[in-house]
């Protein structure tokens, strides 16, 4: 503890200190707190002499300083960086690179051919499947995303006011769909929406005397997918809003009640304005999530794709094909990994743009709070 913050510039003394500390630690077991703490202190301070006085220090000497003890923190933190490099940064950079090539992945890396911005030009100007998938994504994003918030906000307020100690149980129930596997959910809904034998049609038939609806027809499939998406994420948003409501000072409500404010007035004039930062956050998540929408439509429309058709083509008339699914089919269906990467990056730009737009609309005066 009492060691100098900036250690002496003499390297040998430094090394001696290090090896002494290590030796002490070993000899006396873990009880020798000052020794080990001193080492950390020295580690933290060591960049200072390197930058200032020790330019002439021989390389060998500084290498000697890199004891196992010093390497340990880097070793412990390395799994994250290694995994990030392998599964995060490398694919990211590689996909930028690939997006300028024509590449059928099955031909191996040797089969890559430079095409410049041709892939981007094709996707933006000519690829009507991409344009359609983008339209579908926007449609499902609004139909599946907007109601999430319209329901989650009042629901969170209702749960907050109506259920005292049982609140968490109810929140848990609403949260359940969020932590369940998307594939399992989608398969269950595939059965529920089944044309001839599904519960949804049976219910609609009994209540409204409707004919059996084929939910995979292009005019219905987006509605069906949006419903499943809404059902899945509404609980997550409720939890977000509820946690934000709980941070609103109670005396605001008390004062409002004293003034004779109704439940609605409390909600409208206290809860909503106070929730604005959280609304901004939740809407941002929804925008990003719905632009990346993949699993729900992928699994839900898989059943309607005919024999031998590409997986991920979005069912009849590609009505349920999201933009992320288009990335998948371009890559794995059409074997055009260059164009698929270009689609992915264009999608990234759109997400960035939409998030910025959202920031303009909702985020502006939340920053000051």
């Amino acid at each position, binding site marked *: 503890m009492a060691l100098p913050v900036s250690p002496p510039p003499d390297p040998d003394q430094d090394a001696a200190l290090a*090896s002494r500390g*290590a*030796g002490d630690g*070993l000899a006396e077991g873990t009880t020798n707190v000052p020794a080990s703490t001193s080492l950390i202190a020295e580690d933290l301070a060591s960049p200072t002499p390197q930058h200032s006085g020790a330019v002439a220090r021989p390389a060998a000497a500084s290498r*000697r300083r*890199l*004891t*196992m003890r010093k390497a340990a923190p880097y070793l412990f933190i390395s799994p994250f960086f290694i995994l990030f490099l392998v599964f995060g940064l490398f694919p990211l950079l590689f996909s930028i690179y690939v997006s300028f090539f*024509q590449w*059928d*992945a*099955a*031909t*191996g*890396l040797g*089969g890559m051919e430079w095409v410049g911005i041709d892939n981007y030009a*094709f996707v933006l100007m*000519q690829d*009507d499947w991409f344009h359609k998938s983008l339209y579908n994504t926007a449609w499902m994003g609004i139909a599946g995303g907007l109601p999430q918030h319209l329901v989650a906000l009042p629901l969170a307020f209702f749960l907050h006011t109506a259920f005292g100690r049982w609140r968490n149980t109810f929140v848990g129930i609403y949260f359940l769909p969020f932590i369940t596997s998307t594939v399992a959910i989608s398969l269950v809904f*595939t*059965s529920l929406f*089944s*044309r*001839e*034998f599904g519960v949804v049609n049976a219910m609609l038939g009994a209540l409204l005397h409707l004919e059996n609806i*084929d939910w995979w*027809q*292009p005019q219905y499939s987006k509605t069906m997918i949006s419903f499943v998406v809404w059902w899945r994420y509404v609980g997550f948003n409720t939890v977000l809003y509820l946690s934000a409501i709980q941070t609103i000072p109670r005396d605001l409500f008390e004062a409002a009640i004293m003034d004779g404010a109704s439940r609605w007035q409390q909600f409208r004039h206290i809860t909503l304005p106070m929730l604005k930062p959280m609304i901004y956050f939740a809407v941002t998540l929804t925008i990003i999530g719905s632009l990346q929408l993949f699993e729900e439509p992928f699994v839900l429309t898989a*059943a*309607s*794709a*005919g*024999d*031998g*058709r*590409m*997986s991920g*083509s979005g069912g*009849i*008339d*590609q009505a349920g094909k999201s933009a992320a699914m288009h990335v998948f089919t371009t890559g*794995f*269906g*059409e*074997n055009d*990994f260059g164009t698929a990467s270009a689609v992915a990056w264009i999608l990234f730009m759109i997400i960035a743009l939409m998030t910025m737009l959202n920031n303009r609309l909702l985020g502006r005066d939340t920053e000051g709070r």
Partner: protein
Amino acid sequence: MKHMLRPTRPWQVLRPLTGLLAVLAIQGASAQTTITVASFPDFDRAVKAAIPLYKKKNPNVEIKLVSLSYGDHHNAMTTALATGANLPDVMAVDFGFIGKFAESGGLEDLNKAPYSGAQYRSKFTRFSYPQATNSKGALAAIPADIGPGTLFYRADMLEKAGVTQAELTKSWDSYIESGKKIKAATGAYLIPSAVDIKDIYIRSGLKDGDGIYFNKAGKAQVNTPRFQRAFELAKATRAAGLDANINAWSNEWTEAYKREKFATQAFGAWFAGHLNNWLNTEGKGKWRSSQLPEGAFASWGGSFYAIPTKAKNKTAAWDFIRFMTLDKEMQLEAFRKLDAFPALLEAQTDPFIDQPIEYLGNQPARKLWKDAADRIAAITVDKYDIVAKEIVDSELDNVLMKNKDIKQALADAQAQIEKRVRRR
């Protein structure tokens, strides 16, 4: 103790590792060869059945089977070919992917030495080799089983409707007319989906060397009378309410089989096994098999074995592939156990082919299927077939659901295919 904490040189750390590697290397040299076989269900059952038989002949070879679901398997193989890593020694490839994989260049050309696969060509069903041959003439895989197309029909429903089998299959028009009678008499649909009719029709009348969607020069040939009639037949079927508008393998489809809603189904011969095993076990004795309407012959599916260029044990892999495909007993074993119709001609002449099939009312249907197999044209496959099919099916949806003009739909399909395979 202090010395041990001194910084060690890199090779010192590696020393125990090198020792381990040496041990492993020695073990690999002296002991058994292990070959990895990547496959998918149900086809992987053939490998499972083969392992004990093969081990009897080759006790030194260990076979490791890696099986993923149909889609996952082919995606995993695409990725493996892309990176050249994690490739198996023997790769099972389904018909739907053989065109793409054959064209990739990541598979050994089995026509070349030391394989010299061309010498076995005459041993296999005529149309199976061209399917595995790419545009450069390289043989990418050896056929294991084939799917001769056949029309399954409900004999009891035909009888009730007063329709004979000859009437049903004489022409497509008589097929649709029969369908109307069957629907009136039994309430059953003629066929699950009108799209199926299109799929058979576009395959009929093709000669050896033709492609379904592309000609030899690689040009799309979708805006043609063949597709025109196929679309018209599908539309007529839909208009008469004869199809259930249900896709194969969907929940609706399996449920409709259990409830006996379909009078016919055109599929590969292997479908008899599916009907018997799970789709309609109670339909035993009610189903029959016949040739497709209007003298059409088509194949549904088929499976192949290939060796990746970067495989480790190519010699052992080739030996195993020959066992799976050229060994008569093995081919018959797969035929008996999983209804995989053998690609090997020798296995097709076995007395087993004449045996009655109990499920099909003791009809010796395998003879019929062999006859079909002999007459199916050796069409060439194109790696863009799957893209073309997606586009054609999509346009047919427009015709059937949105009443789009057929001529327009085909012109659009042609244009869309040309656009999407822009870099042939």
